[in-house]
């Protein structure tokens, strides 16, 4: 076994809460979220950046938490799926995803919802192609993507802006 470099202290904010944590260098943000903070809404389906299930938003941008070192998250603002609904009120994206049947087994859902949220924040009226480019890294086996796309289209026709 390789010798250990000790844990290092980091401060980061997850869903608006500040945390101080001591982590070993090889620990990923995904592991911090799931194991230390017990925010298990962020999923691992491959661990190698090929499925999008572990997507979280860092400073509003979608990133793969399985390929992000915890030590690289010092002082960053991280939003996970648990931080989206405020006080139990679902966001519009979340509501429409449910209404349109865009959730089945739900394992890809957190990543897809966060990537969609980030897209709609960055681009108020994304084209079909832009939607697909934003979600091309998110594998979903259950829905065939039809109802996911339908839900996003509905959010757009509602003229809803994600910035609130």
């Amino acid at each position: 076994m390789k010798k250990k470099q000790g844990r290092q202290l980091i401060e980061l904010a997850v869903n608006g809460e500040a945390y101080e944590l001591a982590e070993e260098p090889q620990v990923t943000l995904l592991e911090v979220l799931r194991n230390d903070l017990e925010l298990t809404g962020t999923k691992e389906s491959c661990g190698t950046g090929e499925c999008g299930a572990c997507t979280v938003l860092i400073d509003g941008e979608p990133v793969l938490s399985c390929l992000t070192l915890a030590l690289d998250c010092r002082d960053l603002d991280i939003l996970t799926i648990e931080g989206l609904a405020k006080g139990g009120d679902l966001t519009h994206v979340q509501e429409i995803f449910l209404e349109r049947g865009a959730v089945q087994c739900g394992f890809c859902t957190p990543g897809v919802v966060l990537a969609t949220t980030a897209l709609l924040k960055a681009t108020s009226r994304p084209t079909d192609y832009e939607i697909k480019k934003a979600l091309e890294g998110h594998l979903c086996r259950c829905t065939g993507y039809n109802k996911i796309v339908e839900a996003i289209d509905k959010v757009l026709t509602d003229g809803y802006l994600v910035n609130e």
Partner: protein
Amino acid sequence: MHLPRFTYKKSDSLEETAQLLSRYDTGACLMAGGTELLPRMKYGLAMPEVLISMKRSPVSSPKIGSDGDLVLSPLMTLRAVEGSSLVRENAPLLSEAVGLVGSGEIRHMGTLGGNLCQETRCLYYNQSHSFQFKKPCFKRGGDICYSIPKGKECWAVFMGDIAPALYSLEAKVKIMSRDKTRIIPIEGLYRGDGKKPLILSPHEIIGEIFIPGSNGLRGSAFSKFSFRGGLEFAVLSVAAVLDMEDDGETCRSARITVGAVAAAPVRARCAEAGIEGKNISDRSLSEAVRQALDEIRPVPHHGQTSGFLKESLKVQIRHALSVAAGRVKKD
């Protein structure tokens, strides 16, 4: 999956990274975006003792240098490159290629330099070898190639999308280490050896990328052929640049680069020469395609046969050239 253990160093500048690399010698590795290195580490294909993270280090913005070159930092994320209007205006081919890399998240994380410095790939190599293909291949320090088991060669393929675009843009890269810097044409970055694709020594990193400005009519196109149209590496890719005479019809110079057919991107030089000085027409483009097929022999990779790759090469080169020709700005 989890990462093996390592010692973590944070670096905020390329100079500092060069210092650290030279201090730790061969045991250290630079990580910029992490999307290339970390999966390799999880699979046990890279085991650096020291990982030098440049994640979210300050990045200089793209600029036009005194000689008219577009100057890019290797630390720019692909997303930043894609979103840069300066890049779009001066090197639309690069914007196009960058937009086709990986997935949305990969582009948010991955960097230009990381994409250029990625390792060659092969189905047998890119896995963890905990119970499959345990006997090491050439690339893992052994003496077999599972993919093409004859001879002494590693047949892993360089699959990056950015390098072919930079070839066709005649880009240069600044290579730096603690003690010296040098500027070389992008072609010089690649050795053409599947086993060790990059010319860089363990102490060296890419410092800057220079893309010469175009002073005339130009049309360019990047064609990436993949099965799903996203998320994955190219089956093959073609980056075409057509520089035109002022008449807008005669080709002054052409650059056609093919990716994912060998251990480095390949220029179709005969095809380029054949098209130069000619009017762009169905006939001249078809002739160029024919010449390209004579000079490029795709290495069968990722389950695709050479017959299929040759046919695809034909279609994709033709497609890229047609699109590039259609984009020549005439005013």
